[in-house]
């Protein structure tokens, strides 16, 4: 009944009122002068901010990378690809590239693995509500600390005379104390471990949200079909979580590749450059060597590498 009232074609006066209403519609949609500009007016705050805070700085850094001795020289000259050649043939840059690859890959895999394991544990019906709440608080703690606090805590704990060595030597795991962050053999792994510790709670929470969004009906159907717990995990949980896991993995690769503060406050890129990353390399070029042109070239290379990851992230989002 209501439909009949709303449909003009169905009402008795429809034939008479149709031309009138289409005339009104034409009047309403008639473009006024400058109408096309209005949407840009609304977008302008964002566009201006993006232009001032992103486009201009990026364009400046890109232009610096093609000049010689920018900033420190009053009149820098065009240097072509010389800065890129310098950076890409610098053994320290290549070492930083390798270290960054190891650091971000291991961190991301561990973040996902630990995040999934802890999220599954927090989602299990085997634990009571209070127990889960306590575990949630405990597990989330590392994510609440600032980078400076994390760096100080772990520098103290991994000190040769710190808590970690004390425990490991006391229980007989090690005979001698290890300088975790100062030994070239252990520094990169110790740093990666700290980064994993600091970052896994975010994954845990995100994956937990994903797990709680999976319909119990799917698990019930799988159980009826005789699926074991492992098969349910493999054929129900993982496929359902796949979009979350992939998006998180790509985001983590981008975030971890930009990690600077933690590295700077723990090892500073040392010892013997074994923890030198692209971020610390670029910083040292700019603020220690005052080679802003090569620092810009390194930054552009990092930007390009990050854009590849960003491309995959955007494509994933579009697929979803």
């Amino acid at each position, binding site marked *: 009944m209501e439909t009949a009232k709303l449909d003009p074609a169905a009402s008795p006066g429809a034939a008479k009122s149709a031309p009138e209403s289409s005339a009104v519609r034409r009047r309403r949609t008639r473009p006024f002068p400058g109408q096309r500009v209005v949407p840009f007016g609304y977008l302008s705050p964002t566009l201006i901010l993006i232009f001032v805070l992103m486009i201009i700085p990026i364009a400046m850094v890109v232009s610096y990378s093609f000049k010689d001795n920018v900033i420190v020289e009053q009149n820098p000259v065009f240097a072509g690809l010389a800065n890129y050649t310098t950076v890409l043939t610098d053994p320290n840059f290549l070492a930083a590239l390798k270290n960054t690859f190891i650091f971000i890959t291991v961190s991301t895999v561990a973040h996902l693995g630990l995040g999934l394991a802890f999220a599954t544990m927090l989602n299990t019906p085997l634990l009571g509500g209070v127990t889960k709440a306590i575990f949630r608080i405990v597990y989330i703690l590392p994510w609440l600390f600032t980078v400076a606090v994390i760096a100080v805590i772990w520098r103290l704990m991994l000190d040769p005379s710190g808590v970690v060595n004390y425990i490991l030597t006391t229980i007989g795991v090690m005979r001698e104390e290890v300088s975790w962050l100062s030994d070239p053999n252990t520094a990169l792994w110790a740093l990666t471990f700290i980064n994993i510790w600091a970052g896994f709670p975010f994954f845990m929470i995100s994956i937990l949200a994903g797990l709680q969004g999976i319909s119990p009906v799917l698990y019930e159907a799988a159980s009826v079909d005789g699926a074991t717990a492992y098969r349910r995990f493999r054929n129900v949980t993982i496929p359902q979580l796949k979009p979350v896991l992939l998006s998180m993995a790509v985001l983590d690769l981008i975030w971890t590749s930009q990690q600077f503060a933690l590295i700077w406050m723990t090892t*500073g890129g040392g010892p*013997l450059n074994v923890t030198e990353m692209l971020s610390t390399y670029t910083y040292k070029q700019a603020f220690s060597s005052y080679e802003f042109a090569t620092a810009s070239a390194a930054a552009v290379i990092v930007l390009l590498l990050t854009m590849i990851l960003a491309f995959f992230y955007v494509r994933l989002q579009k697929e979803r």
Partner: protein
Amino acid sequence: MTGGSTRLQGRTRRLLGVMAVAVLSATAVGCGSNSGSSAGTSADGTVTLEFAQWWAPELPAGSFDKLMSEFTAQNPKIKVKLLSGPYASTKQQLVSGAASRTLPDVVGLDGAWVSDFAKQGAIADLSELMAAAKYDSSQLASQIQIKGKTYMIPVVNFVYPLFVNKDLLSKAGVKTPPSTRTEFLDAAKKISALGGNVKGWALPLDTAVPNGIQNDVMSWLWASGGSMLTKDGKPDLTGQGVKSTVEYVKSLNDAGVIAPGALTMKEQDKVEKFSTGQVGMMIDSLAHITLIKKNDPKLNFTVVPIPAEDSYTGKRGIPYASWGIGVAESSEHKAEAFKLVQFLMNKQANAELSTLANGFPGNKTAEPDFSKSDALFKTAFDIYKAGYPANEFVGLPKSEDLMRSFDEQLQLVLTGKQSVDDALNKAQQAWAPVL
């Protein structure tokens, strides 16, 4: 919806769009008109100077503001706006400011930055300002010059003597603090033999802030009257002096007397280990005496000159760091800025600031009041007067980078991956293009 309300909505949308653009344009114009001006002149002719430094946070709360109030009282037409922050962030702020020509009018400087800022044309030639103000520079203890022009004046100096834990020393059976390299090695060995994670010496070689090379390594060279530069200012790292120093540091490492974790140890870790009795000796700034006493009031320690080579009898160089001051080249009020410099360098204010900072004055005639300070400051002042301030990194271009490249080579030596000769040759090659 009626046609009237649609028109109204359309008008509202247009109006909002135009307003958004107008507000943002106005904001942008406003920002533009304010940017680039580091100081201001009010309608009554009062000049406001911006003064960026890391000193205020390191002084007793409010004391530096009080000193600035004294300046303003003497110069009613000049106001000072302090831009205070920690050392590292002040450095970054100044590097950015130098690049964009927006340095504050007056800047706190470290000797390690001067050459690069001067090369950029970011800091003003103080020689000209001194001449214009008819300033008597003979009262200055030192001036940092590049090609004969003064760019920085050290306001307060902090020397780096050898700190010795007297209790650990006597427990190890060493009666007097070491005075020569041989005595130091012997004392360090005996302290390390005490066991329980105690070591003789701490050597911070962190490459993020590689000033351990200046304070803890080259200080051995300067204490024996040596130099890492030739007379014409070129690197002389393969010379006998530096070689002897690095070989000595290696011998300390080989003897196992250096606290573990040296390769990424920071200055604050060194002080922490000394404060907690984990190392018996360290070379450190006098500025840390108060901190050490605060951490452990019962720690029984003293300061002595850095040990020299056994055969050396001359005056000993003692490393120092300075709170230096300079004026921005882009400042529109250089004369007023120099008045502030003059004030901080006058006998009374300089003595007051030195006393507050537990440092030594940049004005030769100023006498800091140690009556309320720890007795160790007086001891250190005597060491300072008996020797001479030595820091060859001051005024060098890219000095932090020079320290870092030397640091990396030294780390290879200490980890047994390279010989001393190879390390020094490589360091020499790295330094040569810079100097």
